[in-house]
């Protein structure tokens, strides 16, 4: 598709005004290459773009940031994340800073063929966007709306990942997929303490777009939605900021909106053994097509921020079982010190019985672990109370949603945190494995 660059709406000389009296040396040092240059460079930028297009868009895109660029967490920030591979990107990928998550229902009347065609189109669009390119198509015809909505032009690819998942409803009798239902995919049971709003719950499909730039993530979902007109209907969408989990110790542990470090004991997604044990769907799954995939559970968790902010520090720390400032367990000094759940003081557990980390800890749940990959969200102001609306948009990956159900039955019933939070939205999706070269989501799903 690089043969059909985006329309340039400026004059023929797209340079920034610099005269191109000297041709750029062929061995020009890598320079930041924005989407705009990648796609529509002319004039002074043309030497760079021309050379790079010959060498392939991927190579160009990965030059986007120099080795000196680092994310706040300290890890080098590659500009692009491979779209294809054994697993879908956006799961083991070190968490990007921003999220745009949307779910869709298949439109009434849309057929199996429509859905398959859309998934094929989505694959091409998602792959292009993760490379920092525009949605394929469009020759700059003034009589046609541009195929790409355009707001990511000039932005870097931002490590965009686009991850697709399929909800339980997709495997009903509408599309002949009943026989391909991943064995653990079914609606989540009712869980203690939840108060789910149907408007932010469920969906036949989900798309998780993560990027270091919120506009890049939003652009991805917006364009997939646009391509989906007539086949899928958007059901709900969530924007996330401030990743609330590190998925690698390389990343500094971020804080959630309660001000506590979140994800200290999360799975290190680089650890293939642990990922294979807890996150990736393995050989035990009878549906071969979904092996190497995972299950995504999303929970929109509203925080009662005003009430929380009024809680005394000692209680806040007891609720979590950690020190607020350092993130250390109440039995330790450093963030990564293992919690001592047996330690007592004055006859009481130092890490209280109803504290969040005690209830959620693998050692207290028969070793059960999940990969958390959530983000903070806000919906503005509550119309009735004027209080802030927001909290945690929880996303976790696991090899069966039963893991989440087991944990949440405990947390929902006993967690001291429940005084300050409520689960108001929910989703469960089977996330297929990564695509091989030449494969697309449509053929992968329908076989």
């Amino acid at each position, binding site marked *: 598709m690089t043969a059909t660059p985006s329309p*340039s709406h400026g*004059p*023929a*000389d797209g340079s920034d*005004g610099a005269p191109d009296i000297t041709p750029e040396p062929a061995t020009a040092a890598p320079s930041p290459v924005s989407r705009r240059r990648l796609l529509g*460079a*002319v004039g002074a930028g043309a030497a760079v773009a021309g050379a790079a*297009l010959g060498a392939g868009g991927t190579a160009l895109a990965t030059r986007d940031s120099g080795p000196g660029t680092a994310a706040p967490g300290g890890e080098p920030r590659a500009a692009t994340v491979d779209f294809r591979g054994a697993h879908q990107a956006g799961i083991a990928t070190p968490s990007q800073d921003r999220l745009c998550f949307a779910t869709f229902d298949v439109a009434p009347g849309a057929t199996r063929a429509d859905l398959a065609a859309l998934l094929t189109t989505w694959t091409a669009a998602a792959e292009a966007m993760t490379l920092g390119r525009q949605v394929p198509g469009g020759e700059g015809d003034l009589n046609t709306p541009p195929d790409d909505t355009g707001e990511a032009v000039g932005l870097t690819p931002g490590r965009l990942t686009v991850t697709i998942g399929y909800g339980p409803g997709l495997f009903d009798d509408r599309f002949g997929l009943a026989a391909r239902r991943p064995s653990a995919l079914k609606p989540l049971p009712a869980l203690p303490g939840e108060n789910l709003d149907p408007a932010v719950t469920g969906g036949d499909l989900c798309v998780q777009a993560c990027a270091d730039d919120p506009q890049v993530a939003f652009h991805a979902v917006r364009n997939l939605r*646009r391509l989906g*007109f007539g086949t899928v209907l958007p059901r709900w969408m969530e924007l996330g900021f401030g990743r609330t989990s590190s998925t690698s110790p390389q990343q500094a542990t971020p804080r959630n909106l309660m001000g506590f470090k979140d994800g200290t004991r999360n799975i290190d997604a680089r650890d293939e053994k642990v990922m294979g044990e807890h996150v990736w769907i393995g050989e035990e799954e009878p549906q071969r097509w979904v092996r190497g995939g995972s299950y995504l559970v999303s929970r929109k968790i509203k925080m009662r921020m005003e009430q929380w902010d009024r809680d005394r520090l000692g209680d806040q720390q007891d609720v979590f079982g950690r020190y607020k400032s350092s993130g250390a367990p109440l039995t330790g000094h450093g963030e990564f010190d293992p919690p001592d759940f047996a330690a007592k003081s004055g006859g009481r557990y130092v890490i209280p019985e109803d504290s969040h980390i005690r209830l959620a800890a693998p050692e207290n749940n028969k070793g059960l672990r999940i990969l958390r990959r959530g983000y903070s969200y806000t919906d503005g102001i509550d119309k009735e109370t004027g209080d802030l609306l927001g909290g945690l948009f929880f996303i976790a990956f696991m090899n069966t949603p039963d893991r989440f159900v087991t944990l949440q039955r405990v947390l929902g019933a006993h967690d001291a945190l429940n005084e300050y939070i409520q689960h108001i939205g929910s989703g469960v999706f089977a996330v297929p494995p990564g695509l091989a070269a030449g494969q697309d989501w449509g053929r992968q799903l329908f076989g």
Partner: protein
Amino acid sequence: MTPQPPFRVPAFRHPLQELTVNPRATHRRALACAATVITAGLLLTACGGGKDDSKGSAPAGAKNAGDKSSTVSIGISDKDCAPTPATVPAGTITFDVSNKGSAKVTEAELLDGGKILGEKENLTPGLSGDFTLNLDAGKYQIYCPGAKTEKTDFTVTGAAEKTWKDDPALVTATQQYATWVTGEVKELVAGTDAFTAAVKAGRTDEAKTLYGKARIHYERIEPTAEIWGDIDGRIDGRIDDAATAADFTGFHRIEQSLWEKNSTAGLGVLADQLSADVHDLYTKVQTVEYQPAAIANGATDLVNEIQSSKITGEEERYSHIDLLDFDGNLAGANEAVTVLLPVLKVKDPTLAATVAQRYQATADALKAYAATPGYENSGYVDYRKVTDAQRRVLAQAVDAYAESVSKIAGKIA
């Protein structure tokens, strides 16, 4: 950018017409693609707007331009920026621009009317640069701001570009559409006269039943009516479009009195004005020359209009006959699509099928609210009875239809 009427109106090209900004006009773009830019081996289309209505909707692109290559030298000086040669054949043209020694003139642009197609800037004395364009036959200008003679003519020769007028099927389509629009406006005139007569006679209930019957014809042909922003504003403006209370006139002003006050008191002058305006519109629409792409994009605008002002209940906020307006917009879009369909079926049968299917889905969704005689004799239920969830279903059908219609213009040319 100065809004332009969507259709060519030879008899009414008063300069003011193009300067009139119609805040409600949903579409105002007569489009044509004038040049493609070739730089460093990349082919980029750089179409920025129609330079000439007679070129119609055909994207000029490389396929229409000649395949010859030429080089034109432009020397910048205090005096001018004359091109050498001043006339070249259509095709790929490289402009070599050099500044031999002018401190005050440092750039040269190739203009197509007022539009910059290519330029080389910041050429201080001794510097040179180039830009390459793929140009169709036509008259252009080289422009160097600051020189004694700022603009010099530049001519590209070659066969006239092929236009939609060379396709008899498209010519037929435009004629069919013109005939249909004229017929609709004729109905509008008759319906409006009956309505305004009832208003003037103080027959409030009768006026209410005639209101929708007149309006639906307007809703069908809005893209054409919007060519004349002032008339459109007087006929169909909303209270929030009006700068002053006196500027709120036409259908919706009368609607407000009929439904809010259940009265025709003081509406005589407004009724006369409305009647005069639709008669004026009838005279004017018969002069319009339609272009296929503008017809197609007018259809998109009509469907968008359903989404922005009918689904929301904005347009008929006093009478709540929004579903009848929905019907009118949809019928108008469908007529535009229908006249273009024979061509579209040849150019892009898949899109033609998609458009037809999504039209049907939208029409079916609307039909669920049809009633006889319906609220205020509109043929539909009171729009206030349609729940938010039901409106969302309608909106989703409309959205999908609009998306497919928006792709037609680029395919038929």
